[in-house]
């Protein structure tokens, strides 16, 4: 996925969801610095291309806020600093799983920081690790279901001729994803880069699109 070149102009084209969240949140988050690129654009570049320059910008925009949240919740600057490390590491690692359809980049970073902080505090209080924050606030619904999409791929391809007439009726966002994967035969990573959307968003749109197609051609959900 590093090999896919994404033109700068492609970043200018944001989905309606990204534009909306930009209006609500980014201005206050970024306070002027590098304000041309939204947090979503940066996170997508980190997730799709392992772009360290974009990660640097995200780090500058969020690390001090994470530290502030840590100080407020733990009342300990050393722990708050550990939280910055943990949370930004999670941002880096999970960026490929970020999903535009499930919210803004700010919310995504907020919830993962909340989760890391919750686990940290439980560890310090020596509470049993019977459950962790990601069990309490699962973000992986789409990720788990996306495995199903993968497994279905074989049988769906067999029926592509039948599906072709129906897929024109899909909403644009879902149709272009189905098109990338099943017509142009691209991998999930290639398609996400080509459409400039997060891999997680691609997978959830694909799942929704395939679900609708299945309904249209009358294949029952088993």
């Amino acid at each position: 996925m590093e090999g896919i070149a994404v033109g700068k102009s492609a970043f200018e084209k944001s989905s309606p969801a990204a534009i909306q969240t930009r209006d609500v949140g980014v201005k206050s988050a970024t306070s002027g610095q590098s304000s041309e690129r939204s947090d979503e654009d940066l996170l997508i570049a980190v997730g799709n291309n392992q772009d360290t320059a974009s990660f640097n910008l995200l780090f500058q925009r969020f690390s001090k806020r994470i530290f502030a949240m840590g100080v407020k919740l733990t009342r300990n600057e050393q722990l708050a600093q550990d939280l910055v490390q943990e949370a930004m590491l999670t941002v880096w690692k999970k960026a490929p799983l970020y999903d535009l359809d499930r919210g803004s980049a700010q919310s995504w970073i907020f919830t993962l920081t909340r989760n890391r902080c919750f686990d940290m505090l439980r560890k310090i209080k020596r509470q049993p690790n019977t459950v962790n924050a990601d069990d309490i606030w699962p973000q992986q619904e789409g990720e788990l279901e996306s495995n199903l999409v993968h497994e279905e791929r074989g049988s769906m391809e067999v029926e592509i001729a039948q599906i072709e007439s129906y897929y024109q009726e899909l909403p644009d966002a879902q149709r272009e994803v189905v098109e990338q994967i099943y017509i142009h035969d691209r991998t999930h990573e290639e398609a996400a880069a080509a459409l400039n959307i997060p891999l997680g968003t691609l997978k959830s749109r694909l799942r929704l699109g395939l679900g609708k197609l299945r309904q249209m051609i009358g294949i029952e959900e088993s």
Partner: protein
Amino acid sequence: MTYHSTHHPSRELLGKFAEGSLSAGMSVVISAHVELCPQCRETTSALEAEATLNWLQNPVSDTAGSEPDFSHMIDAITSEPQSITPEADRFAVNEIHMLEGSVSLPRVLAKLASDGLVWKKMAGGINQASVMLDNETQCEFLYMKPGSQVPVHKHRGNEITLVLDGSFSDEMGRYRESDFVLRNASHQHQPMSDEGCLCFAVQDSPLMFTKGLARLLNPFLQYRFRRATSAQA
């Protein structure tokens, strides 16, 4: 799931849940309700967005003078590999087997139950399996067999009962699957169940003994739940 719950956590409680400021026990029981209740799921998403905005708008420089700089962390972070695929589901148990069939559990409770529940018989046809989550709450699965009645009791603190299967009723109403029932110290009540009921309950009054010690001292026979229910038949 056709039944929509009529008893929900308050907006205030959901707000604290979204912030992450509740105890583990409270967070778990709310998480389980939210998974079963589309209405509260929507509210929670909205409250998470609200909490995000508050976070972004709060002034960042409380620590006057020393501007913290963390950029030395960046190189170590970006040399780590990224996750391409989500972590696999780590727990296999997602249901509890009972005599009448099996009950599917919300994800977080399935995780809790996957360690194995130790059930003990209580008075009045109640089975109880405690789980240890934190030092601030007592959490347990409760199974009321058909026709059972809890002795009249009062709570010292708040008690939340989330109905997972079947139904129970008390002086104030009847509660069914996914209902989130909050009782505080002023309520005196006597829950009963005609059809049987599986619940998850959280009390915020502190424990008298540690769970481990209580288990050693437990005068009742302990069963795995499957055997306990067969024994009750």
